[in-house]
Every structure is written in structure tokens, then in C-alpha cells.
């Protein structure tokens, strides 16, 4: 029973962090139709900045600066590279592949700088734990859940109540109509990329915090597990991303927690379990759980 609670809490924390990343995918996809393959390296970029800066600025200052700079980088990538391609659905496919090129360059540079090191981020939680009844939880995990909940609520409010959110939803609904109604597509898009970059930098902190050993060159790859989360929920649906992230986080934690019972699947199945779940969902619902079925006009 304690094991189960342990796994559930761990899964919840993991899912909360995935939700930050998956929400980034969804925001970018909604605004530009692009699936951002460079998200993992943006995340690593944010984490690297925190690691480098926290000695001088303290953790909070470093985090704030890292979030801002990563947001600016993501916005600039979109504004100066991707938006040259245009706004229609076809160029969105081309731009998706452009993000792969960006990812290769960015990731190579970061991996070269980080090398084989394990960087600490100087976060205030350290390896402290809290007793919650029968289970012991790392403080960083509780912080991940709390911060993600607040931030995600903020992002949903942004979608719902701000002019920018309205423009974003209008542009996602019908690009041309939105442009005709005076929505500045380029600005809405760049804003979405900034938001996604900021979320990625924030997620990096929790991915590198205890019980993880620290930030390493492969930390960005964890963001890949948020792909299934975003797809699972339906790529254009923020609610779906949230649900998908929780499903993926819980699956991963449960598979890892009950590894001995799942021995026939092989060691390390937890790493690939998200993908197995995603395939099963796509078999039943090719557009994801919350995805709308696309209506094609002739």
C-alpha cells in the first residue's frame, strides 16, 4: 500500500513536470502548427543557465533570468528563423523539420559545454524529505506539484482571459479569418514560443532536482517523454496535454515501482512505457484523447 502511494505521488510529480513541457508543445502547435523538436534543447538551455548563474545571482535570480532568456531565445528562433517560412499548414511541416536542425545545433553546443559533468542547480529543496502519513516524499517533488499547479492555472487563465489568449485561440481556429480580423499572427506566434520556452526552463529545474542526480547533457531527452503526453491528449488541446501528462507520469512511476512484478518486460521498461501507452491510445483514437477529428474541406 505504501509502495502504491509512493508510486502515485512520484507519478503525480513527474506528470506535473511533463505537463509543463507538454503544455509548451501544445501552445506552440496551437499558434504555429509546428511540433517543436527543439524543445528538449531549450529545456536543457534553461537548466544550464540556472546551473551557471546560481552562484552569482542566487537560485531565485538565476531561475528568473534563465526563464526570461530561454523565453527570449524561443521567441527569437520563431521570429527570425521559422516565421520566414510563412503561416500556412504546409510550411508548418517544413518548419517542424527546421526545429530538428535547430535542436541539433543547440544540443551539440550545450553537450559540448556540459561534457560529462553533473551540474547542480542550487535549488533550495536539496535532498530534504517530508513525512506525509505513511509515505516519505522529497520536498522537490512537492514543490514540483505545487509550482506546476499554479503555473498551469496561470497559463489557462492566460488563454481564457487575456487579449493574447483570445488571439491565440482565434488563430488556432482559423488562421486566415483571424488575420483578417486584425490578429497580428507573427506577434501571437512569437508570444506562444516565448511562453513555451519559459515553461521549458522551469521544467528543467524540477527535472534536475532531487532525486535526480543533477543536470546532465541527457536531461533534455526527458522532454521527449512529454511528446507522448502531448500526443496522447490531442496535440491542440491544453486540457488534453494536462491529462496526457498525468497518465504518462503515473504510468512511468507505476512501471518503475512494480518493476519486479513486470520483469518479463525487461529492465528499464519504465523509460519506454509512455510510448507503449501512446501507441495503444493512437490505435483507438488516431487524433488523441481530446483531439477533434479534422474536417477536410474540398
Amino acid at each position, binding site marked *: 500500500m505504501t509502495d502504491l502511494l509512493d508510486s502515485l505521488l512520484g507519478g503525480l510529480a513527474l506528470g506535473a513536470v511533463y505537463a509543463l513541457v507538454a503544455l509548451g508543445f501544445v501552445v506552440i502547435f496551437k499558434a504555429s*502548427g509546428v*511540433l517543436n523538436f527543439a524543445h528538449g534543447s531549450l529545456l536543457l538551455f534553461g537548466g544550464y543557465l540556472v546551473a551557471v548563474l546560481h552562484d552569482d545571482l542566487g537560485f531565485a535570480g538565476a531561475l528568473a533570468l534563465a526563464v526570461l532568456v530561454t523565453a527570449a531565445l524561443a521567441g527569437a528562433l520563431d521570429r527570425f*528563423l521559422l516565421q*520566414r*517560412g510563412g503561416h*500556412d*499548414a*504546409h510550411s*508548418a*511541416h*517544413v*518548419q*517542424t*523539420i*527546421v526545429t*530538428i*536542425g*535547430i*535542436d*541539433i*545545433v543547440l544540443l*551539440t*553546443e550545450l553537450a*559540448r*559545454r556540459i*561534457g560529462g559533468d553533473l551540474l547542480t542547480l542550487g535549488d533550495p529543496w536539496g535532498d530534504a524529505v517530508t513525512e506525509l502519513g505513511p509515505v516519505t516524499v522529497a520536498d522537490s517533488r512537492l514543490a514540483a506539484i505545487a509550482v506546476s499547479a499554479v503555473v498551469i492555472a496561470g497559463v489557462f487563465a492566460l488563454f481564457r482571459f487575456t487579449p493574447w489568449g483570445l488571439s491565440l485561440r482565434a488563430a488556432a481556429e482559423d488562421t486566415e479569418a483571424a488575420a483578417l480580423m486584425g490578429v497580428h499572427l507573427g506577434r501571437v506566434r512569437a508570444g506562444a514560443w516565448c511562453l513555451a520556452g519559459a515553461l521549458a526552463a522551469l521544467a528543467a529545474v524540477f527535472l534536475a532536482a532531487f532525486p535526480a542526480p543533477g543536470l546532465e547533457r541527457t536531461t533534455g531527452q526527458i522532454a*521527449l517523454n512529454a*511528446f*507522448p503526453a502531448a*500526443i496522447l491528449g490531442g*496535440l*491542440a488541446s491544453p486540457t488534453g496535454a494536462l491529462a496526457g501528462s498525468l497518465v504518462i507520469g503515473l504510468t512511468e512511476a507505476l512501471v518503475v515501482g512494480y518493476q519486479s512484478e513486470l520483469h518479463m*518486460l*525487461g*529492465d*528499464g*521498461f519504465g*523509460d*519506454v512505457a509512455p*510510448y*507503449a501507452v*501512446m*501507441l495503444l491510445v*493512437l*490505435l483507438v483514437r*488516431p*487524433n*488523441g484523447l481530446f*483531439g*477533434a*477529428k*479534422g474536417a*477536410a*474541406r*474540398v
Partner: protein
Amino acid sequence: MSDRIRALLTRRRATLLTVAVLLCLPPFYLDAFWLRIGLFSMAAAIGAIGLALLSGTAGQLSLGHAFFLAVGAYGYTWLAGDPGPGLPTALAVPLAVLMAGLAGGLFSPVAGRVKGIYLGIATLALVFLGHHVLLTAESVTGGFNGRSVPPLSLGGFTFDADRELTVLGVPFGAEERLWFLGLALFALTWFTARGLLRSRPGRALAALRDSETAAAVMGVDVARHRSAAFVVSSMYAGLAGVLLALAFRRVVPDYFGLVLSVDYLAMIVIGGLGSVAGATAGAVFVTALPLLMTRYADQLPLVAAPGSAEGAVGPTEAARYLYGAAIVLVLLYAPDGLHGLARRARDRLRRRRTPTTVPDTAVPSPPPPAAAARPKEHTP
């Protein structure tokens, strides 16, 4: 008019023959390093052509190519190897290709229904799950350390360096022999793929890419054609995997990861989507660049030799910068890739050579290759 066509055909045949002869020469003049680059390029080209059929023509984005390469490579190794049925190697090659096709077919419930970006991520799942299987199914795959690949032997002739063989005064080792095997397989791929593109199913796929709805109205069975394209593309990948396994002489799981899949996507993008020649050019570029940069690292500016001080830009990294930048630049400034650049250069040359005559009607310039996907439908 017919004379001109005949002349053109003769010229085309002559060009083909010249190219074939030129491609047969390297084993007599170049050393093993260059031959290995050529071999890997040929294997990559076979796989890239398969992916070009799928992504460029059928408009499907696949990141699962590494998985099908792995099926081909491991399929051959297992079928012909010791833990395994130990079939004759000449039989193991086509069976391994069929196995890759079968794997693609098993995936068709997803490949036929899921489209565009969704398929890209769904196939990503294949790579990760496949890698996991390669690591865990040790009795078949040899686990983390992989297993060695039995050399191919065709009618008593072994593609290996075991028995001395000298042709025209040149000692023929494994690389020299495999070169001709690779060349034959590449020619097979080249002509079948081009034939396929011009056939009825090929045109159906192109219609499907341009507009799914219009194609369906014209009587194209959407799901069936999508899955068929996926199966054919995975069979080419399987063939490439077999050739790679023979060239490496050892297969390890870590080679068949996400990076390899992305490499193949990069090849067809850099080459120009949907064109067989472009895919070949892209394959050579992506394969040869890191190998060449590693070899000539000491002569390149700004690049440190491998194994020098940490933090320096090594040849592998320099190659990856160039290659990432190439993807970005090609897509932003020349969306039809190397193939499109070559075609434009050729057109300009031809126009300059014959400024007064009417445009050559016997050679209608091919329509611009349409890129990644259908132009005007929104992916939900």
C-alpha cells in the same frame, strides 16, 4: 521529332553506362577508408530513398526509420547466425527484407490512419520500443554488446577478406567486394523506386499527398495506399540495414537510436523531398561529412583533433553544427533541397547555351517537387 527523342535516349543510355563504369572504378584506386565511406553512403542512400518514397511522396512524416533498419540488420544476423536458424546467407538477405516489410505491415493499423506529425511521433515510439527490445531480447540480439554479422556468401563467393583474391593486380578485401554488392543493391533500389514513382500507385500516392480528399474522391483507397507506402519504405530500410550490418560486421543496439532516424529525415530534406536523386545526394552528404571531418580534422581551421582538450570543438561536433545548420538553411532558402538547386542550375545553363531557340519541348522540365505534405489542409 522522333529522331530527337531517339538521340536523347541514346544519350541517356550513354550517360548511364558512363556513370556505371565510373562507379565500378573506385575499388581499383581508392583505399579502404574511402571505400567504407562509399559503402555507408550507398547503404544510407537505399534507406533514404525508401524514406523519400514515404515522406516525400506519400506526405507522411516518419521518424521510425532506424527501427526498420534495425529489423533488417538484426533479421539478417539472426537468420544467418548461430543463435538462430542458421539459414544460407543468400536466403537470409531477402528474408530479412521481408521481415522489415512485415514489421511495417504490422504497424499499418497506425500508419494507415494516423497522418502527418502524429505519425512522426507514433513512429518515434517504434524507435524507443525497438531499442528496448534490442537491449532485452538477448538470446536473439545479443543485448547491449550486439552480435557479429556472418559474412554474405553468394554461390561460393564470400564477401569477406578470408581468402586471397586479386583482381587486375589489386588485392580484393572485404571493402572492395562489398562495394560491388552495395552498387548492385543500390542500382536495384534506384530503378525500382523510380519505376514505382511513375507507376499507378506512385501517382496515387502523390495525389494523396497533394489532397487527401481529392484523391479519395478519385477512387484512391487512402488507408490502403498509406499502409502500402509504409510497408515499401520499411522494406527499403530493411535492405539498407542488411548492407549496413555487412559493412559494420557487428550490430549494436545503440546505433539504431533516434539520432539515426533524424539523420535519415535530414538526408531526404537536404536532398530535396520526394526525389530519388535528391535522397541519394542527401545520403552521401550526411554520411560522408562527419567521416571526412574526422579524418581531416587537423587541417581544418577552428576544429581540434579528436581527443584534444575538453571543451574544444572536435570534428564530430563541427560536423554536427554544419549538418544542423545545413538543415535549417536548406529549408529556409532552398526548400526543394540539393535536387532543386541542381535542377535550377541546369536550367540556367541550358538557357544560356541556347538563348534564341524555343524551349526544348522534348525535355519537359519536371514539375517542381512538392514538399513535405499536402499544401492546404489543416492538421487537427
